[in-house]
């Protein structure tokens, strides 16, 4: 208190101001990072009764000719010294605030709160979507057909005559008549190929379709399910040759499995001629041979061929003008291979422990 009284009596001569500045410096050093001391200093120097405030007030007591200069001098010192102090105070205050924020740190190693569990598409449908995506980009259109099918579309029109051993290649479910007294000309489609005959008959040529879907065989064991999935492809136009079959299927298989080699072998399916079996380089051993591929380095992946002229005729398409190729492949096995699923039965059992893994 005594200093304030003293200084109030002193005029702000350069000597007095230099003295004040020196004291300010000293106190600043003493206060260091102590925010409290700095704030106290602020009121000691710049408060209503502070040293510098008093000096400014005493300017008025000076003779008129000295006031201006002394006022300017004092004011400048006030600005310089106060700015120095405030910078220090602000810096320390923001550090304090930051510390305060840090104290509210959360434990984010705790699990998050889910709006809902993770859903998942069935692996078979994921493969179907992928295949459809590739094939539609190649110019195929999606088509569907009934699963309860007439013998004509499933067999006869596809050049499987009645009483022909080719029918033994596919164990067939037959449909009982609604009164239960006999068997109808209806079957559960054994393959997706009847979509070929239906669409060819309905829309004629040219035609490019793919048809994924469920198919049924009267067969159930470790490697067979009475229901499984296939995708069918059909491309009929003028001037379509077996080279085109190879082109389309090679790009399809490469897109699906990566470029690991494709092999075309003669085979037999009644609705194509020539018939083709297509192998892809074994995805398990890369072609060097393993148990899965029976040491051949190849995995049988699809059946194909040039549409048999009789099939075209059966569907009222002129086989002299139009040719085409067809292919069909099993989807479930691709899904099993893709996710390393060892048992076909998992696919159709709806076990959450299985479905939520993939």
């Amino acid at each position, binding site marked *: 208190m005594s200093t304030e009284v003293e200084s109030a009596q002193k005029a702000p001569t350069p000597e007095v101001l230099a003295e004040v500045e020196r004291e300010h410096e000293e106190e600043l050093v003493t206060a260091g990072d102590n925010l409290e001391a700095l704030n106290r200093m602020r009121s000691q120097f710049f408060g209503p009764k502070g040293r510098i405030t008093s000096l400014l007030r005493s300017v008025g007591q000076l003779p008129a000719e000295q006031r201006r200069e002394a006022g300017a001098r004092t004011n400048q010192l006030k600005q310089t010294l106060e700015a120095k102090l405030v910078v220090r105070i602000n810096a320390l205050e923001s550090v304090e605030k930051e510390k305060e924020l840090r104290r509210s740190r959360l434990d984010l190693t*705790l*699990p998050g*709160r*889910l*709006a*809902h*569990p993770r*859903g*998942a598409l*069935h692996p078979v*449908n994921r493969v179907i979507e992928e295949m459809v995506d590739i094939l*539609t980009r190649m*110019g*195929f*259109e*999606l088509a*569907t057909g009934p699963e*309860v099918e007439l013998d004509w579309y499933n067999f006869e029109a596809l050049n499987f005559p009645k009483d022909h*051993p080719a029918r033994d290649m596919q164990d067939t*479910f037959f*449909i*009982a008549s*609604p009164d239960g007294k006999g*068997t109808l000309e*209806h079957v*559960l489609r054994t393959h997706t190929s009847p979509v070929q005959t239906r669409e060819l008959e309905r829309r004629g040529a040219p035609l*490019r379709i793919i048809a994924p879907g469920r198919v049924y065989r*009267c067969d*159930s064991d470790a490697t067979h*399910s*009475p229901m499984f999935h296939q995708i069918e492809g059909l*491309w009929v*136009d003028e*001037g379509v*040759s*077996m*080279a*085109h079959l*190879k*082109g389309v299927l*090679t*790009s399809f298989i490469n897109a699906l499995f990566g470029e690991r080699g494709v092999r*075309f*072998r*003669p*085979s*037999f399916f009644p609705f194509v001629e*020539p*018939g083709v079996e297509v192998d892809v380089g074994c995805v398990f051993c890369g072609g060097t041979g393993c148990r899965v591929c*029976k040491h051949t380095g190849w995995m049988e992946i699809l059946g194909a061929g*040039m549409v048999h*002229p009789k099939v075209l005729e059966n569907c009222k398409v002129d086989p002299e003008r139009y*040719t085409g190729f067809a292919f069909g492949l099993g989807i479930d096995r691709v899904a099993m291979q893709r996710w390393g699923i060892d048992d076909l039965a998992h*696919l*159709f*059992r*709806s*076990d959450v*422990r299985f*479905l939520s893994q993939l």
Partner: protein
Amino acid sequence: MKASTQWIKELLPSLKANPAAIERRLTAAGLEVEGVEREADAFVGVVVGEVKEVSPHPGADQLKITKVYDGENEHQVVCGAPNVEVGQKVPFATLGAKLPNGMEIGRRTIRGVESFGMLCSAEELGLPKDVDGLMILKANTKPGKPIAEVLGKKDVLFELSVTPNRPDVLSHFGLARELAALFELEAPQVSVKLKEGKKAAKQLAQVEIQDPLRCPKYAARVITGVKVGPSPDWVKARLLSVGQRSISNVVDATNLVLMELGHPLHAFDLGRLAGQKVVIRTASVGEKIGLLDGTSRDLSADDLVIADAEKPVALAGIMGGANSEVHEGTTQLLLESAYFEAASVRRSAKRHGLHTEASHRFERGADFSMVEQALDRVAALIVELAGGQVEKGRLLAGQQEEKPKIVGVRPERATALIGRPIGKKEVKDALTALGLVAVKPPAKKKGTPNLGKEALWFRVPSHRVDLVAEVDLIEEVARLAGYDQIPTAMPPGARAVWTKGKELNAEQALRHHLAGEGFLETIALAFHSEAEAEVFGLELPRAVRLANPLGEETRLMRMSLLPALVKAARLNQDHLPSLVDLRLFELGRTFRWAEGQTAGLPEESLRLGVLWRGARQPTGWSNKAVGVDAYDLKGLLEGVLSAFGIGEVRYEAHEAPHLHPSSGTRLVLGGVVLGSFGQLHPRVAERLGLEGPPVWVADLEVSALEKARGARPQFQPLAKFPPAQRDLSFFLDRHHLAEQVVAAIRAASANDALESVKIFDVYEGQGVPVGKKSMAVSLVFRAKERTLTDAEVEGAQRSIVAALKDQLGAEVRMA
């Protein structure tokens, strides 16, 4: 079919390729080799051992301790064979060997004495038994030599997957013929040296065909003075190598020739044929036959049989009868070699559930001109194996020659179809190599395709039943060169923009929507059992039934997706008892006959099934489980509908056997039912063994959703003026529905710029009069062109309050 490469090479001595090369060539030509078996593999680790010492076993009288020399070292082996003697050369299975019967040889201690290997009997090596005890090898055999070499076991056997169009390769001769073409060798020929006796066969037996359509050709021979007995070892071994059992020398001869030439044959005991004749006819209803497999069959009028003067003695092309079977006392044989029509054999075989080596071949198509050759071959072989005399001449019935099959092929058509240049020469060379014979173009007549002047014409040999049209010949040309000769090219570009089908689009959208809401997609077998259908109250009379189900579970095609989903809930409850939170869905078809439908296809409906039970949200440290209720499920469905742009759906109370009456609801849009949802009826849950929280299910028809899909929404200008919000709270009778409240409010403010109505509170209980409920709504008013004045908003609100009071008796408590 199992094929021996050694046998093939005996029939085609010019074939020098090794088995691996043969395998590759066959597979590349469409005769897929599915498995390869090396005879020697069955004897790995078994070598010739020389018995150096034999001493008694201290612990057992029947056992002996031997020292066996394997060419390098001596091993102590405990042996139980009675015939073991010093100096013998015997098969010695060393440690690590695996015998054909599956036995693995390891170090063992037998009654306290260590044994390092095993001395083998013939049986233990899978060979015909010769003597009791050890198999004794020739004295000069070198110890240490692999036993496979000593026994000449160097054959390589193929498991061939023969497609049903190629009966001609179901034999070793057929394979040899195919390989000759594939390796550009001279085609093999069947050669038979047959010495005939003096007596004319005609005097000993007669054959007669009564059904020439189903049996166009029948040939037979008579052998007298045979002696039926066991076959020699080479015959037994050969049959065994291709998976056949030895029966007797005569039967073995027919089987061996079947495996060699591919033509089914049968030997009758001529002495047991009444009237010494065979008649090929259809059976009469009521006739029976006892077959060689020991079964007795009732015959139908569609069964073709071989009969003697009195009774059927064989089911034609399928199996012989027990009553004419060759047995030990048989001395006279009637050998049959015939051509039966394929479909006829197949129908009978299917009817009687029989599948034999013979029926397998006849069903696929026999070789018309092999009939006589196979007959002579088997006659010669029987005389070789069983003695006797082949009597003079064949007994023949039916036509001798098949109508020649002439097929034309245009090289330019082959070029267009295969996609690489194929010239006349290639066509001719390839087809000639396969046994086709070039002929002059046939005279034009009805039925022959007009292929123009450039076509080449061929006579197809009788064994290639699969070659009937131009495209078949084109395939042969492509196949012979290999498909790797065909270039890989993309077809001419697209000519139109293709789109996905609408239903498939909808299916995919739904699948992704539900997976995004945390649901797991399932695929279930599309069948029901009757019991399931009954529990769910499905309309059984309209079920699509399988005529040949695999069992109870596959009796019906499914009529609803829900039973499988509920079963899945049950299964998951079993596997993880604590896991009752479950979100599942399936997209699939259901099947049913229309009311009174008698023709055409049953209805197939693509549906979405949803099952939800347990918590609304995954629980954790920060939130407790809140059970799913009807409004969660409804919210899910509203989300689905909004994704389809479907707005004004009515939610009507719905009674269904599988739904709880408190919540069963159906979705109706303009009179069309889109689906239904609600809590699974507790009765159903209980019958299926579900425990724990309620199960919520929904079922939507995908095509109805797709049809109801709203128009693409159009952009609306953003509102320029501020909204005014007012809340109303009122009591009303509890039976009034939310939709009535909203309808009353909307109707009362038709012209008053009411933008939205939202119910934000519904409450019953303390503070609310009995029989009433409290409801609170939030109203937002807004005009397009100006700011609404307070007075306008008040006015609109007043008319709403009045309408609620007049129409629903609502007492407004707060405004």
